[in-house]
């Protein structure tokens, strides 16, 4: 069993009265891709800046390979950072950028040149060393920014939403490339983002963060299918959501009445909701079956009939918005890819249904 590359223990950061990071602990195993996912302002950048050394924690400890780095200055930490806007040095060429850290370490010139060439080779951009920063495309800059850190052979590489500035197509491409680079360099990556698809695609482990705390740490699959909190259920992936009250509870099987007067079957996955509790219910659009004939959904515990109010075509992820006959909010439903509903039009009436096990209920706190 190898020691973890990075361990944060009871990490807290306060700015005046405001607690940006509230008692966060986590461990990142060596060589893994760890993401911190959360909305802007949740404190994820603060954690990253504490790890990099630009901020000092109010309390708690940060350990890299088992050693506390709290009293190590940022320029001495075995940690490097890829900044949100990359922060390449515009006053130097590519060689100068990648060789900067090595020069600071006092390596000999030929060795620096060799390492820079090697790094350029690794990122698939050999021979661009003499170019200027602004002559590169967005994706090339991205790779140079990573290479600039990787020549330092850091124990942990921090990435602060590095794909934010790229256009969608390139972002999709870079997601895969980042994962490949991480495998190639075999270094621990800590990646922060507010974009769940970046986190889900690349990460071995994801921490979902909200208001300074970690809501849940797990694999993408766990977060998506077994969210532990209402925040995670709402933040990761799409979900239809209702508020209601528990009317019957039997071994995790719940009966809920929504504020609009609907009755749902649901499940609490061991969170122990009791009769009378206020609850939030999340149902993923793809968990809902859609049918032309009412009989096709008859076997499902929750059923509804609705009118299509709009169709959101998005290739494989096309959806329909339905207004239930019984009233209440619109429901988002993923259309099956069989082509069966290719001719669905507005105002068509369809039948939908889902299993009680797919309706994830969380205590909504208070009453």
């Amino acid at each position, binding site marked *: 069993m190898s020691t973890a590359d990075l361990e944060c223990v009871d990490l807290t950061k306060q700015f005046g009265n405001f607690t940006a990071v509230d008692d966060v602990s986590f461990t990142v195993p060596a060589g893994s891709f760890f993401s911190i996912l959360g909305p802007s302002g949740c404190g994820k950048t603060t954690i990253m800046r504490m790890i990099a050394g630009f901020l000092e924690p109010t309390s708690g400890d940060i350990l890299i390979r088992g050693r506390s780095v709290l009293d190590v200055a940022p320029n*001495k930490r075995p940690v490097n*950072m890829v900044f949100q806007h990359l922060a390449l040095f515009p006053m130097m060429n590519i060689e100068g950028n990648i060789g900067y850290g090595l020069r600071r370490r006092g390596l000999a010139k030929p060795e620096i040149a060799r390492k820079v060439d090697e790094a350029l080779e690794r990122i698939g951009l050999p021979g661009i060393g003499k170019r200027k920063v602004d002559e590169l495309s967005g994706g090339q800059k991205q790779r140079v920014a990573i290479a600039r850190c990787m020549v330092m052979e850091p124990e942990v590489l921090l990435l602060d939403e590095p794909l934010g500035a790229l256009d969608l197509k390139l972002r999709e491409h870079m997601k895969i490339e980042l994962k490949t680079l991480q495998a190639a360099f075999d270094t621990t990556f800590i990646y922060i983002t507010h974009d769940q698809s970046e986190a889900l695609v690349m990460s071995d482990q994801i921490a979902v963060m909200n208001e300074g705390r970690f809501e849940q740490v797990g694999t993408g699959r766990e977060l998506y299918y077994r969210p532990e909190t209402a925040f995670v259920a709402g933040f990761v992936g799409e979900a239809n959501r209702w508020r209601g009250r528990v009317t019957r509870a039997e071994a995790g099987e719940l009966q809920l009445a929504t504020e609009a007067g609907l009755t749902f079957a649901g499940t609490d996955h061991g969170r122990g909701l009791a009769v009378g509790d206020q609850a939030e219910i999340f149902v993923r659009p793809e968990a809902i079956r859609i049918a032309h004939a009412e009989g096709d959904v008859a076997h499902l515990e929750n059923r509804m009939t609705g009118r299509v109010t709009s169709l959101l075509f998005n290739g494989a992820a096309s959806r329909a918005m339905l207004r239930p006959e019984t009233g209440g909010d619109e429901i988002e439903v993923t259309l099956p890819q069989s082509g069966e509903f290719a001719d669905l039009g507005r105002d068509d009436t369809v039948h939908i249904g889902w299993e009680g096990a797919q309706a994830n209920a969380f205590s909504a706190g208070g009453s």
Partner: protein
Amino acid sequence: MQAGAKLGFILLISPLVLWLGLLIVIPHVDMFLVSIRERIGVGQYQTSFANYMAFFGEPLYIITFIRTAMMSILATVITLLIGFPVAFYIAKIAKGRLQSALFLLCLVPFWVSELVRTFGWMILLRETGLISKFLQWSGLADQPVEMLYNDVAIMIGLVYTSMLFMVVPLITTMESLDDSVIEAGYDLGGNGASVLREIIIPHAMPGIVSGSIVVFMLSLGNYLTPTMLGGKDSLWFTELIYSQFIVRFNWELGAAFGFMLLFLSSVIVWGTLKLTGQTLKSTMG
């Protein structure tokens, strides 16, 4: 359509052309004509370069010019050394209201005229002035200390007068430097000195160059500060020009001096740019 565009172009360009033509080109041409006129008798003149020869023939004039240029260069360097940290603090460290307040503080001295500012320094520096009184009161000096009427006083005045013109371009260029670039410099193992040398100064170079040119030219062309603070040894080239024009009624020599100042200062600026590997183009855009 095309004619309309042409008219629009003429209308847009004409203020610039008028300004350049009426206020810069024509007076300079006229000055040049005056400078190549030699007085040979009462109201009689002939064309010659005698006035330029007079400049090179009289060591006093050349010495005065060299002294003026050296002092101006020194003033520029001191202004840069003081202005750089000030600008860095305002642009990168101070935030919000403090930032605007500090910036305003740099501007405040320019709300009063240069004459009043110079008088302010005279009040502070003179033998019976505030600083001298304070030194005596605190026991650091046992007799009045004269700090006025010497080159140090000129230097103080020049640096003070020029500070804003150095700080503003520096703040502008440094504000455009992303904080994360500085952080990246530290993150990759740099310390304060190397980040300053490799990242902040190269980035601020256009501001340094344009600020230095402005301060150098302002110092070279300053008249009030050297004459008022400088005392009996204050030789300043603009003083020579003034006295030729006004006191000696010798417009011809004064005009020649004016052109020598224009020419030599341009040579110095050009030479410094060459020496430091900068170009005017990279500075301006």
